[in-house]
């Protein structure tokens, strides 16, 4: 009678290592955000009159261009997830009670999701020439300012 010897086995496959993917995400999104955020600051705070020139018409001008829509959408998603994950790391470090820690992390991700949904909807349902705008607040390309 032969004896069956179990072959040596490594530990059974682990579940997804979220901490590892979080670590990778911080670095990948961080590099992308350097380009996205500095581009954003350059276009909004450096070019022309900077902060002084920012109003509804300025935003409308930018978001009439799919380039800036995609730019801001990427920045919104990457930055909020990057920031929320960073805050999660800090909460994990300093929260002493497990219940408090879990609650704070839940609040962080809930806030993150809410703002990503809000921001995405705003970018893609945005109307540069809304009916409730007075002509002087609207960009020059709106029909109301074309007469």
């Amino acid at each position: 009678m032969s004896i069956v010897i179990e072959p040596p086995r490594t530990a059974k496959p682990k579940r997804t290592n979220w901490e590892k993917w979080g670590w990778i995400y911080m670095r990948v999104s961080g590099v992308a955000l350097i380009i996205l955020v500095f581009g954003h600051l350059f276009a909004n705070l450096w070019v022309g009159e900077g902060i002084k020139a920012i109003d509804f018409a300025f935003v409308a001008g930018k978001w009439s261009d799919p380039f800036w829509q995609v730019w801001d959408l990427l920045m919104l998603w990457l930055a909020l997830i990057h920031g929320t994950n960073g805050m999660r790391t800090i909460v994990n470090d300093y929260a002493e009670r497990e219940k408090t820690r879990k609650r704070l992390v839940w609040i962080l991700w809930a806030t993150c999701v809410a703002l990503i949904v809000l921001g995405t909807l705003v970018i893609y349902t945005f109307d540069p020439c809304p009916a409730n705008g007075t002509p002087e607040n609207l960009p020059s390309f709106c029909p109301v300012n074309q007469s």
Partner: protein
Amino acid sequence: MPSKPAGTLYRGKVGMWSWVLHRITGVAIFFFLLVHVLDTSLVRLSPEAYDVVIATYKTPIIGLAELGLVAAILFHAFNGIRIILIDFWSKGSKYQNAMFWVVVSIAFVIFAIFTPRHLGNVFG
């Protein structure tokens, strides 16, 4: 007499303080981001609502706070590259101290170039 800790990559000296600064600037940028998504969302409500709120960004006090925000972003961005280099570059940990001062210098130079122009826009 126990001697003072010599300091390692992480404890004491530049390694620790860059970590502290990275956290503080990160938290500051995070809370600004929350506010900034909300204020930008006002464009969907009405042009007037957005213009009224964005006008506060042009006031002297918030204008100065924006310098702090830009300084925080500059440090966090370049120190982030330093962290990546410590992780992935074979000589990263050897040069982490020097890289910290490179980070501070680059951030300071860009800040020094940006500040007069921004102050001109806020106060001019």
